């Protein structure tokens, strides 16, 4: 026996792992007996007998043994489970009104949850389609000099080749140049042209770094030739109606390119979006010294680094680059240059650099997620409140169940099943609701994304959504399950009067939370709306209304500006005409010119925003001249030699008497002078302050024609269009209004507020649902009491105020808590604006009045019947 003990131990250890303990002894005994029997019979040698023992043991690993948890399985928990579901379904059908309230609340909550998941998934996976995304960095820089501190996403195009040559840790480098609207003609013979918004130009290394799927053409060689172009699928469909376009030519602006590859459309969640990719970046040759070019960033630079690359080491090693290439100009302008590396996938949400492509905002996501959670919480609270409030009606049921032997755990399970059943019904509703919202409403337009509930292609979405609803069901069911299962059975059965669950305080707190959240969201939204209204209506220092902006497309038209001007001025609806290279509200405010300017310590380089303008600029834009004079009309020597400065520039330079101060372009040899000072005007959004600015009149007017119109605007536009088309036939006539374009800068703010607005309506709606449910229940419960009160002489208004008093007090307390919180939040939010409206405290009062009114009317409608009923009837009520 002892020599066999090791085999036994092993076999029995295995047996004990799965075998129910009460069967262990007999099975072990039988196994031993059989083994001994095998040995004794002489049919088996020791080793074979041992093997048979082990094999016999293993064969006990079967359902008939493993699942035999008890000797008898008379109690079937599955049957009980089915019973719970049946029960829950009956409760659902019995309380139709409350079930409806609950389901609609939960469905809204779950829909919000699903949409949130979609948004988060979209934003958090930005740029991750590139296989090497965690080895790709974008190189930006902080450039500091007197008057300018520029954190930019761009770098000089001369820098990339230098980095490639000097750093062994860098595997590949590519540069991107993003083009604005460009005229594209499918082929030379074609007369029809399109404006294409998304064109980029990149080095031939582009496809070594970024991952794109090729539909046609060769990845390695498609960008080697300077005149080659890569189209995306949709661009190729748009221009040629097919993807079989390799070798065809396309006219972009005035250059002919030949198509070398077609790739799949760039995923929407990429921060670089393009339809057309041109090959090769030409060199720049207009700088006096090579070192000067390094200080003039113009392209996006992306680095593919090797494994083990350390950004900190890069920053240190960059010093050698600086000394070699930047230092000469850097010393001259007293500048400082610090490289900034951003991981590719972090750019969309976390980059704060200027001169960047459109990006997301992590705070915005947090806000959305936060409000979304609030809404889910509100929906759950609704359920908790209704469920516990109704406990008085169900205490008898619970007591009977307990008497029949149901434990607390069992009861809790039953209540969870009830809430999960509701949440699953809501889940189905929510799926339809979400699909509807995404498909048939302007929601996608509003958030600027293209979300869809594509369950067929992304089945994991369904699982996530299902998970959300189960989670919501559990959250909503947790409190009722805990409370209701504790209702004492004996007391309920003995006391004939229906005992009333005493958790009113908890319920008050829960309603209070709902009120706080709703008021917080509503007041915050209103405050934000205030700020946006303020920003839009603020005097900007120029007149943004009634100005038409028309792009001047090419040099042919540039040369004819004066005749065009004279011609369109004949129309009485046109007041004045000017041109400028950059348009207010469209100006890239990050673009600063390093200029020599007179200061107390002599001429120093300082950063200024510079407007290059044509005739009558101040008059047309309505910018006010503070001192000095405007440019003279005609070519009388003001060209390039005279500057107008704004107040911010005067202040920045510390000029006491600005007129006549010397200013000159970095490369200029001759001094120019300040001839006048204009009042500050906000050429950029009110998120930023007015920067020191110079206005300069240039000989060859170009850029944008700007026309101040009055009276019959459409007639004025028509007359300009006629003029225009007679001169510039190849380009379609285009214009926009200055104020519209200016206000587009607040598009993302407006979007946020619209979304928050929608969410705050949801908050109100869900809270109201909860209130309706509770107050109808309360009214019903107090029918008899009301009858007695009426007999004793109470009037209806008394009764209703009796019911609504509690909710109204709660509402007032809730506003006392929510108002300061929302004020603090909004003050924090407004820090993103350089110009802020003051907080209108009246808003809170209005919200409070509205809220109290809403509470009162909800209670009124719900208790109207109970309060109106004839005491004779209500006293019969049981």
């Amino acid at each position, binding site marked *: *026996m002892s020599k066999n003990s090791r085999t*036994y131990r092993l076999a029995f250890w295995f047996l004990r792992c799965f075998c129910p303990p009460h*069967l262990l*002894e*007999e*099975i*072990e*005994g*039988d*196994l*031993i*007996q*059989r083994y*001994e*029997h095998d040995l004794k019979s002489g049919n088996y040698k020791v080793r074979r007998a041992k093997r048979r023992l082990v094999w*016999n043991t293993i*064969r*006990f690993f*079967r359902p*008939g*043994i493993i699942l*035999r948890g008890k000797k*008898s*399985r008379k109690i079937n928990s599955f049957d009980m489970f089915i019973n719970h579901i049946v029960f829950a379904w009956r409760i659902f059908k019995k309380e139709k009104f409350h079930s409806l309230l609950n389901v609609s609340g939960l469905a809204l909550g779950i829909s919000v949850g699903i949409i949130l998941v979609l948004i988060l998934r979209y934003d958090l996976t930005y740029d991750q389609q590139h296989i090497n995304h965690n080895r790709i960095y974008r190189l930006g820089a902080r450039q500091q000099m007197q008057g300018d501190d520029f954190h930019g996403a761009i770098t000089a195009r001369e820098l990339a080749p230098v980095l490639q040559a000097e750093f062994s840790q860098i595997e590949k480098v590519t540069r991107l140049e993003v083009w604005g609207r460009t005229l594209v003609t499918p082929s030379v013979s074609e007369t029809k042209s399109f404006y294409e918004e998304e064109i980029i130009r990149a080095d031939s290394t582009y496809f070594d770094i970024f991952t794109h799927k090729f539909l046609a053409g060769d990845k390695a060689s498609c960008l080697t030739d300077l005149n080659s172009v890569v189209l995306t699928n949709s661009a190729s469909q748009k221009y040629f109606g097919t993807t079989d376009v390799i070798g065809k030519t396309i006219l972009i602006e005035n250059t002919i390119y030949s198509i070398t590859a077609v790739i799949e459309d760039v995923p929407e969640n990429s921060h670089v979006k393009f339809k057309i990719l041109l090959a090769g970046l030409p060199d720049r040759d207009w700088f006096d010294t090579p070192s000067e070019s390094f200080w003039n960033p113009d392209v996006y630079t992306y680095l593919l680094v090797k494994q083990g690359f350390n950004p900190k080491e890069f920053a240190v090693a960059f010093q050698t680059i600086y000394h070699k290439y930047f230092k000469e100009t850097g010393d001259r302008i007293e500048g400082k240059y610090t490289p900034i590396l951003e991981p590719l996938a972090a750019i969309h949400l976390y980059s704060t650099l200027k001169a960047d492509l459109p990006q997301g905002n992590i705070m915005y996501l947090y806000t959305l997620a936060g409000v979304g959670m609030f809404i889910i919480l509100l929906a759950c609270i609704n359920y908790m409140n209704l469920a516990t409030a109704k406990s008085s009606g169900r205490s008898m049921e619970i007591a009977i169940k307990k008497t029949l032997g149901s434990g607390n755990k069992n009861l809790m399970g039953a209540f969870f099943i009830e809430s999960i059943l509701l949440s699953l019904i809501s889940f189905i509703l929510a799926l339809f609701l979400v699909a509807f919202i995404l498909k048939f409403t302007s929601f996608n337009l509003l958030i600027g994304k293209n979300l869809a509930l594509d369950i067929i292609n992304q089945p994991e979405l369904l699982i996530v959504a299902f998970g959300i609803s189960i989670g919501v069901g559990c959250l909503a069911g947790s409190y009722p399950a805990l409370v209701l299962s504790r209702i004492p059975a004996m007391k309920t059965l003995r006391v004939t009067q229906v005992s009333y669950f005493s958790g009113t305080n908890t319920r008050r707190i829960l309603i209070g939370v709902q009120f706080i959240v709703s008021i917080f969201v509503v007041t915050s939204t209103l405050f934000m709306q205030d700020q946006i209204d303020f920003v839009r209506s603020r005097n900007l220092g120029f007149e943004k209304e009634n100005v038409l902006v028309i792009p001047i497309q090419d040099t042919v038209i540039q040369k004819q500006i004066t005749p065009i001007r004279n011609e369109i001025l004949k129309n009485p609806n046109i007041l004045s005409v000017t041109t400028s290279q950059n348009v207010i509200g469209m100006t890239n405010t990050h673009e600063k010119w390093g200029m020599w300017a007179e200061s107390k310590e002599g001429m120093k380089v300082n950063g200024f925003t510079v407007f290059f303008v044509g005739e009558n600029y101040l008059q047309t834009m309505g910018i006010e001249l503070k001192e000095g004079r405007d440019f003279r009309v005609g070519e009388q020597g003001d060209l390039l030699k005279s500057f107008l400065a704004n107040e911010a520039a005067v202040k920045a330079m510390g000029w006491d008497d600005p007129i006549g101060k010397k200013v000159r372009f970095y490369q200029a040899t001759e001094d120019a002078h300040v001839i006048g000072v204009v009042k500050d005007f906000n050429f950029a959004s009110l998120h930023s302050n007015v920067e020191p600015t110079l206005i300069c009149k240039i000989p060859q007017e170009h850029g944008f024609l700007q026309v101040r119109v009055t009276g019959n605007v459409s007639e004025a536009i028509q007359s300009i269009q006629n003029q225009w088309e007679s001169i510039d036939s190849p380009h379609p006539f285009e214009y926009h209004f200055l104020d519209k374009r200016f206000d587009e800068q607040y598009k993302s703010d407006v979007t946020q507020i619209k979304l928050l607005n929608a969410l705050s309506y949801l908050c109100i709606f869900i809270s109201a649902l909860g209130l309706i449910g509770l107050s109808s229940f309360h009214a019903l419960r107090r029918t008899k009491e009301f009858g007695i009160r009426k007999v004793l002489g109470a009037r209806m208004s008394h009764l209703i105020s009796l019911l609504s008093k509690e909710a109204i007090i709660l509402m007032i307390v809730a506003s006392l808590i929510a108002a300061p919180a929302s004020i603090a939040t909004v003050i924090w939010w407004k820090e993103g604006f350089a110009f802020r409206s003051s907080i209108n405290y009246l808003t809170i009062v209005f919200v409070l009045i509205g809220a109290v009114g809403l509470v009162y009317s909800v209670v009124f409608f719900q208790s109207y019947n109970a309060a109106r009923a004839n005491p004779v009837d209500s006293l019969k009520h049981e």
Partner: protein
Amino acid sequence: MAKEFLGEFEELVLTLVAALKDDAYGAAIAEEIETRMKRDVNLSAVHVTLYRLEDKGFLKSGMGGGTNERGGRRKRIYTITNAGVAVLKAMKEARVDLWKLVPQLKIG
């Protein structure tokens, strides 16, 4: 309640429990099947069948005494219940009835 049916192996085990009287337990039944029926039998199958028959109410069981042969482990001794005897009888009679229907061998 629907009439209980027994599988072939179940019937075999049930019959052996009845036959072995006070000495009916897993290993003994397995050995008995092997020696009498000359067929290889899986010990775990015997156990599971015994449990199932007990669930159906044809057997009852109790722990018997331990012997040295089994490393001191006690046996679970099975005895057939009245229901078990009834079902065995019923099955046997049904079979005999059926057997009577089979044409007997005739010579000539």
